[in-house]
């Protein structure tokens, strides 16, 4: 009878996805914010994604730099657009950041900008590390220690490395304005305290905001499926899943390792649409793994929590840690991470 019968609770993502531009600019501030609102279209999880491919742009990437990014564990952050960031000022930023770090490390002691301190900060671009021409250039920040015994042409030990990138950031609102640089994905390797100092400097300097980017089990399953689907010439690492059972006093972890070729065979059996991965296929793929496990161990993995996925392409942990192993699919992995980061900042 009542017209307002509460409907069944909506699935997690679709609730926000329905948020569209239904706003009327009324007062002046609102009208100005209207454009902001237009950009607030929440990214929903699309039912299908492309299987990562080698993109042409990747050809320009400096192989040495790519090698540098691979096989390292990166902690993921999402980052709101940088205000007034300029690629022409990278040298200047190096000077300022190194002085800032030095000043932070010795609280209260003033440090002259450009003064010789025992660390070196290098800003450099990662040319070609992007999906489309419209993506802004990725850049790398390295903190190196200057050891006394350092020889002339050898750089010191890397204390901390971080990089900012945007790969296929098309779902981002048509570029905000020329004052902003959208590099929603930030990856850091090094001491957390250093990340905090450097993040603070970026937040103060470019009015941006870093948030840790966690990967939930839902997205981990997607990663498992997409990365298994990648064609490999030869497999270097195994495919491994880690489930966590919350029980006291110590939690129980269940590791499930499969030979990557078997995983691929399983995937091929559930995969229908060429070049694409659908939600249905992801679910089916995971269900097959669950039922196989159940047949042998009588444990319902679906009742536990997926916390880590390792494949020959990359491995990801729910805490927001990632290690990329295969250089061929680097861009593809970054594209999905960029998508997650964009989802978080909107």
């Amino acid at each position, binding site marked *: 009878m009542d017209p307002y019968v509460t409907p069944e609770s909506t699935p997690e993502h679709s609730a926000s996805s329905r948020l569209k531009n239904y706003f009327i600019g009324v007062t002046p501030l609102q009208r100005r914010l209207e454009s902001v609102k237009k950009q607030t279209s929440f990214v929903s999880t699309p039912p299908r994604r492309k299987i990562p491919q080698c993109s042409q742009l990747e050809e320009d990437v400096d192989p040495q730099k790519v090698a540098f990014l691979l096989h390292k564990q990166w902690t993921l952050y999402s980052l709101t657009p940088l205000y007034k960031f300029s690629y022409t000022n990278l040298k200047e930023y190096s000077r300022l950041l190194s002085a800032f770090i030095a000043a932070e490390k010795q609280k209260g002691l003033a440090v002259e900008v450009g003064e010789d301190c025992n660390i070196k900060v290098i800003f450099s671009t990662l040319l070609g590390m992007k999906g489309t021409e419209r993506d802004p250039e990725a850049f790398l920040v390295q903190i190196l220690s200057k050891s006394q015994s350092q020889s002339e042409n050898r750089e010191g030990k890397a204390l901390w490395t971080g990089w900012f990138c945007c790969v296929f950031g098309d779902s981002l609102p048509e570029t905000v304005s020329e004052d902003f640089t959208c590099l929603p994905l930030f990856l850091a390797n090094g001491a957390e305290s250093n990340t905090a100092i450097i993040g*603070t400097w970026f937040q103060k300097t470019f009015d941006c905001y870093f948030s840790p980017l966690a990967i939930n089990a839902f997205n981990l399953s997607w990663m498992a499926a997409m990365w298994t689907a990648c064609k490999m010439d030869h497999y270097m690492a195994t495919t491994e899943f880690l489930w966590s059972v919350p029980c006291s006093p110590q939690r129980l972890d269940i590791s499930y390792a499969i030979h990557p070729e078997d995983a691929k065979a399983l995937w091929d059996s559930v995969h229908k649409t060429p070049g694409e991965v659908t939600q249905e296929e992801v679910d089916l793929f995971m269900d097959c793994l669950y039922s196989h496990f159940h047949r042998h161990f009588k444990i319902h993995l679906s009742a536990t929590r997926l916390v880590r996925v390792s494949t020959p392409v990359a491995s990801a942990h729910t805490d927001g840690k990632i290690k990329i192993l295969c250089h061929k699919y680097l861009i593809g992995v970054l594209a999905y991470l960029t998508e997650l980061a964009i989802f978080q900042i909107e």
Partner: protein
Amino acid sequence: MSSQKRNKNSKAQDRTSQGRNSFQTDLSAWTVKQGPSNSDSILKHGQANPMEDYELANDQAEDDLQIAVGYFEKGPIKTSRNKDEIFEKHLKTVENVAWKNGLAPEEIDILLNVALSGKFGNAVSARILKCMIPTTLISEDSVVKAVSWLCVGKCSGSTKVLFYRWLVAMFDFIDHKEQINLLYGFFFASLQDDTLCPYVCHLLYLLTKKENVKPFRVRKLLDIQARVGMQPHLQALLFLYKFFVPTLISVSLPLRKKIYFKNSENLWKTALFAVRQRNKGPSPEPLKLMLGPANVRSLKRKWNSHSIIPMLNSSSYTKECGKKELSLSDYLSSNGSFPIEQLQSFTQLLQNIHCLELPSQMGSVLNSSLLLHYINLVKDESVLLRLYHWLSQTLQEECIWYKVNNYEHGREFINFLDTIIRVQCFFQEGFYSCEAFLYKSLPLWDGFSCRSQFLQLLSWIPFSNFSEVKPLLFDHLAQLYFTSTIYFKCSVLQSLKELLQNWVLWLSMDFHIKPVMTSPLETTLGGSMDSVSKLIHYVGWLSTTAMRLENNSTFLLHFILDFYETVCDIYINYNLPLVVLFPPGIFYPALLSLDSSILNQLCYIMYRYRKNLSAAKKNELVHKAKSEFNFSSKTYQEFNYYLTAMFGCLWTSRPFEKGMHLDPKTLEKAGVTEYKNSLNLVYHPSLLSYAVSFLLQESPEERTINMSSIRGKKWNWYLDYLFSEGLQGLKLFIRSSIHRSVPRSESINYNNQH
């Protein structure tokens, strides 16, 4: 330049104005100007003034002071017999006057010279310096002259220290500082002296302008730092340098440092207070940069920020980045810009609004009421975008039910939300970040934490299409609403009332500013009205169901009727073509309520509905063309139905003749055969006590009260009695609907024009 020439009757007040208006120290010119005050004093002496004694004493003191100053200026008279005694007497005089009324600029000028020339020795210099208290102001030239003595090397280290302390303490009373600033280099060089260093640092801290910050000075300061270590005074000066030119120097302040300078003012504390009192008015509290504990909160957080909302910092950092070669115009413009850290008053904001430096982190404006004015005006979209991004992320990051429960953190988050709500009230509109935050977090809300803040945020949701917001927001809210206590229900209704008020206010403003809307979805006012009416119907549904759940609670009904007090007046108050009536589920419980205030509120709402509908009808007749917003006849019918029901019950004692059939047998079983008048103004359960009081008032001795006696004339008196008891809603309702000329209740001609 002889002090003897000076007029002995001159008054301190004259000197004050003198000191303020002219900046010369040429005493002869000053003396001439003092001439006319002679006549003043003569006049005064002629009067029989009770203040005369006081004046005389004052004059005497002035007199002595002149002699004393003259004495010090000329030096001790060698031939005098008891020279120590005289000397002491003069010094005492100066000290007394100085501490009592302060000294004129000229006297300070002379005595400073005396003190720093050191001709009476260290001890005397110190005593003189300690009493260099201005009446109101100190001339800049005196200070410059005094500084020149420092170069001669005649005064001892202790005198120098005292002089710098004096200078710092009196800094605000120096009339001009341009000349003194030219001596910046000299002061800076004095930093070398370790004993002077703290005081010179303090002086430089007060004196430094952006153009004083030079790379070689930065290097020098860093050298000193390397030599003496982390000294608070040095840190403060370095921090100021960093503030002016962040591209030259970087420093981060430790959290627990509190005092940066040794308190130079201690010696003159009471005197300074007195001078400020005398100066009160034009010279405000000295402008000092905010530093140290005021800005630092105790809780150290991750990412090195001390609180959720960042500190105000002007954005010179990014602006100067990459500009290695500054052009002349850059120099000019950078000098012209006004750092927000120094913004302390609204007048300052108005004067500098064209050259204000925006903060490097836009979120910091939330803590600055002045900058909020600015943000409200600014047309720059990037400002709003920065605020939007920051606020969205911060809300998401800080939201407590995403995290482990942490009391300390929870308090902080609540304070943060309170700040945002204050800002929204100031802007009179909600942030889109908050709206998006609600969409994301409301489904996860427990309905308990930050309840008041959450519901307030809800009431500031910008106007939107109700059908689209409903599944995102109201459906989740409804689940909590129905399963929570009556208090929660009341709070929700309260905030929905505020939401409705905000929406109709926006719409009414917008409708009258630009009748044709250019929005993507709702292109007509009709569409917007539809959205508002859906909201009202939704609240009607919430209310009806809650009434059932809460056993027709009076308390709840108050909140519901509050909502309808806004609803019934939309047409007239907001000039919007919308009248939505309440559902029967609200009307009947209110009509049959046991609480007279509910009945009164209902009458008031009916009265306002009537006013609104009449106005709408009138308008319809005038503008026939604007047919889009004509109300359906159903609204009028509904209203008339309610009206008839109310009159049937309260007035004509013929309740529910239409539309309701009571089986007489049922009534007989219940023992109520005479029910017809049991709901009229006399017998209505909420008014019965009034009727009894009324009758007792009429005839206090009566043992038995005859209720049916209230009729005819007495009925009218009874009405007046009810009105006098504060039932104003009832009064408005009856007065507007009934022609009082007709005496008998039976022949009421209630107005059924609709």
